[in-house]
């Protein structure tokens, strides 16, 4: 990791206010006699988290045939691993909640990211990928590096946007011109620090150039395609004004029929509102300070 990158990502906590809940879940998972009810009890101590989990569990995102009434029921049908991932994803949303409106419209940013998560998950399911649910997290966090820039390097962000607006170029090209690297690499670095699985971190790293990935090309291609779709749908805003280029080889690598795209677009439209409600409500302020400030 080069020093500029280290400077950006060093010390960003991974779990915010959910650290205690996650630690208790880990402890319970290591106890041989713990039950789903015990896990439910731990999560229910946090009413906000409970509400988010049940809202998502009862939404078209999962599409379960019956209503989930309790957290332990939600854990039993969603699976504890996925619940942990959803809690972690929620914590990231919360962690970057203090970014100023002068740098980014955060509601619009998260709408883009959540839609990308929904799209990546749909594509992974259509492609019959193992553990397709994980792609929601990869899509959600694909622009994590931009959040790091907004919160840790606001002055450089202003410089990047100034360059970006001065000519016809992609935002990541402006990032590379100013920083020497782009948001995708920052996101990957932070995800590796947070010990995310290598396939998800790689998918984030290569979501603009999936065929350059030495491994996990398919995972990277799925996130690339979801990002392209969501940009084309103009759903939310990542900061980028253009629909970024689509890598034709990545589309061929995913190997789906074009008619699948319509159902993916439909799923994004159907699920975005409820997923936004589950992840973006209610905000708890945890403000990250730019590096070097007291």
């Amino acid at each position, binding site marked *: 990791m080069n020093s500029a990158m280290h400077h950006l990502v060093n010390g960003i906590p991974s779990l915010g206010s959910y650290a205690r809940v996650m630690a208790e879940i880990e402890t319970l998972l290591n106890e041989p006699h713990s039950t789903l009810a015990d896990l439910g009890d731990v999560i229910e101590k946090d009413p906000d988290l409970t509400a988010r989990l049940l809202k998502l569990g009862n939404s078209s995102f999962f599409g379960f045939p019956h209503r989930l009434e309790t957290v332990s029921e939600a854990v039993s049908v969603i699976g504890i691993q996925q619940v942990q991932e959803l809690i972690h994803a929620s914590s990231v949303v919360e962690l970057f909640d203090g970014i100023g409106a002068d740098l980014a419209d955060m509601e619009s940013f998260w709408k883009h990211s959540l839609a990308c998560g929904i799209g990546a998950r749909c594509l992974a399911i*259509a492609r019959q990928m193992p553990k397709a649910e994980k792609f929601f997290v990869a899509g959600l966090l694909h622009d994590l590096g931009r959040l790091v820039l907004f919160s840790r390097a606001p002055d450089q962000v202003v410089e990047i946007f100034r360059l970006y607006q001065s000519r016809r170029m*992609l935002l990541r090209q402006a990032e590379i011109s100013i920083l020497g690297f782009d948001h995708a690499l920052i996101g990957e670095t932070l995800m590796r620090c947070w010990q995310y699985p290598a396939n998800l971190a790689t998918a984030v790293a290569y979501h603009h150039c999936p065929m350059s990935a030495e491994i996990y090309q398919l995972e990277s291609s799925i996130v690339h395609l979801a990002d*392209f*779709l969501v940009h*084309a*749908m*103009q759903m939310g805003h990542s900061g980028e*004004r*253009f*629909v*970024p*280029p*689509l890598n*034709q080889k990545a*589309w061929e690598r995913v190997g789906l*029929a*074009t*008619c*699948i*795209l*319509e*159902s993916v*677009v*439909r799923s994004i*439209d159907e699920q975005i509102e409820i997923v936004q409600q589950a992840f973006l409500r209610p905000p708890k302020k945890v403000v990250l300070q730019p590096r070097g400030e007291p």
Partner: protein
Amino acid sequence: MPNAKLESLQEGMIVTLDVRNMDDMLLIPAGCALTGRQIIILSAWGIAEIQVEARGDSEDLADPLQQLPPETLEQLTRELQAAFWEPADGSLVQQEVFNLVLRRQAKQALESQRHRP
């Protein structure tokens, strides 16, 4: 009986002609009220349109691109083309996404026109 395009199908619409895949396997029998799952199945088999019972609100079934005034459609097309970094007709899949999104935007424009006082 009107042909309804996949994107205009809604749950509860009555199918008026058996829907079969390319191997002639029956997917949805005539007379069936469409479910959300069946709409996804149609999409998975690449079936672009089916025959459904005519409804009072037949506008819902028609292609939104054909309902928009030509100048509005032209403007939407121009704006969407300008948003793409590469030409939108650069590849088959890019063209497909462009058409999907254009139809979606046309539908949204029609809906907002209908709700305007």
